[in-house]
């Protein structure tokens, strides 16, 4: 028959001790609007877009599992880089929207981007009261470029990224 296992009663008293000790210690919470926590460098907060680098190759939109990236672009002629060279054709972005209501923050778009146009930023304060407002356009995504941190050094024993 399971009775109280020990004749002494440390469980009840010990529990009171735990809560009392904790009461005397400081709180661990962060008073959010007044003070902020710094997310780690790698935190996947929001996706920022460096528009100059984008060539409208559509890879991100195509690899996105949620179909939440919408891209439109047009082509333009540009003067040649060198004297006497051929005229170049470049693709320019007209529209680059990410629907953060659909986004699963998987980061596949950032990884597949061949021209380093997409970056993760730890920025997290972009909540909206209306779900439709979570569709952010390329201007907004461009603003987040400022919050993209430098990549941090790797741990001892890591091989540098090739």
């Amino acid at each position, binding site marked *: 028959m399971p009775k109280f*296992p020990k004749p002494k009663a440390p469980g009840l008293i010990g529990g009171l001790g735990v809560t009392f000790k904790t009461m005397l210690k400081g709180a661990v919470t962060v008073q959010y609007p007044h003070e902020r926590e710094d997310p780690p460098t790698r935190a996947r907060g929001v996706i920022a877009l460096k528009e100059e680098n984008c060539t409208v*190759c559509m890879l991100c939109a195509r690899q*996105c599992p949620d179909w939440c990236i*919408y891209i439109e672009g*047009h082509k333009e002629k540009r003067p040649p880089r060198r004297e006497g060279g051929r005229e170049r054709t470049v693709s320019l972005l007209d529209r680059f929207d990410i629907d953060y209501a659909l986004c699963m923050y998987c980061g596949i778009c950032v*990884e597949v981007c061949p021209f380093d146009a997409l970056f993760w930023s730890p920025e997290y304060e972009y909540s909206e009261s209306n779900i439709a407002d979570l569709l952010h356009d390329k201007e907004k995504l461009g603003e987040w470029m400022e919050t993209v941190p430098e990549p941090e050094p790797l741990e001892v*024993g890591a091989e540098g990224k090739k």
Partner: protein
Amino acid sequence: MADDLEREQSGAAEEVSVEQQLARTDESAAAEQARADADEADAPPTDEQAPGEPRPLDDVEQELLARLERELGDGVVESADAFGMLVVRVKPEAWRRAAEVSKHELECDYLSFIAGIDWQPAPREGDEAGGDTSSPVQPTEMTFGVGGSAGRMQVFAHVQSTKHHWGVTLKTDVDEGHPHAESWVATYPGADWHERECWEMFGVAFDGHPSLRHLYLPSEFEGHPLRKDYPLLARVVKPWPGLVDVEAMPGEEDGNGAQPAAAEAQSADAQSADADEEESS
């Protein structure tokens, strides 16, 4: 009794934890250790099964198969190995008996799951499916996996032994027109929910199941979602945003700009493949 055991065990736990907590935190020492271990870690590769090549059954699998064949006789149709796991296909008539044999002769007391397979390739809807060209393209002819199959529908289950730590996957064929199989609930009580799930997802009825009713879906739901011919609506109702939408330059309409979307998509893929070397390393 239990209390004594517990105290003893937790006492031991305490000791080790203290010891571990005292483990050095000095980083350089750890790094040195790591380097030393790295040399050891260049162990020979494990006995990998070459992809696509059948591997002979190992001793345990032979033993399990022998026991199954002894009890089921010609109920066993085919057997194969899949990465160290025995797959046995049994006749539909022997399905219930297979459970009993597994439980008692194979001592597989643990039911991992029962589920269905629909081997029919999903119809490609192409442009109708929102124009999606990104979803994986499966082969168009019907092929069957390990152990083979007589037709489109199969039910398979995995049972394991908590004592001997071995396991076996059992498969059986299910008639496509009137899909049904024998229920395992009498042998493994846990089969209840799995069979209900299989019934609503694949439409496979289980004879002898106490109450086949919907598990996940609302009771008025129609269709069997996991069958391959059931479309994934989310991919049909919305156009695929991956279609190339680059406005061509004036005067270029007849040239490059007016390529079919899919073709251009492929060209874009190829173009990026060159630039994407770092992915492959």
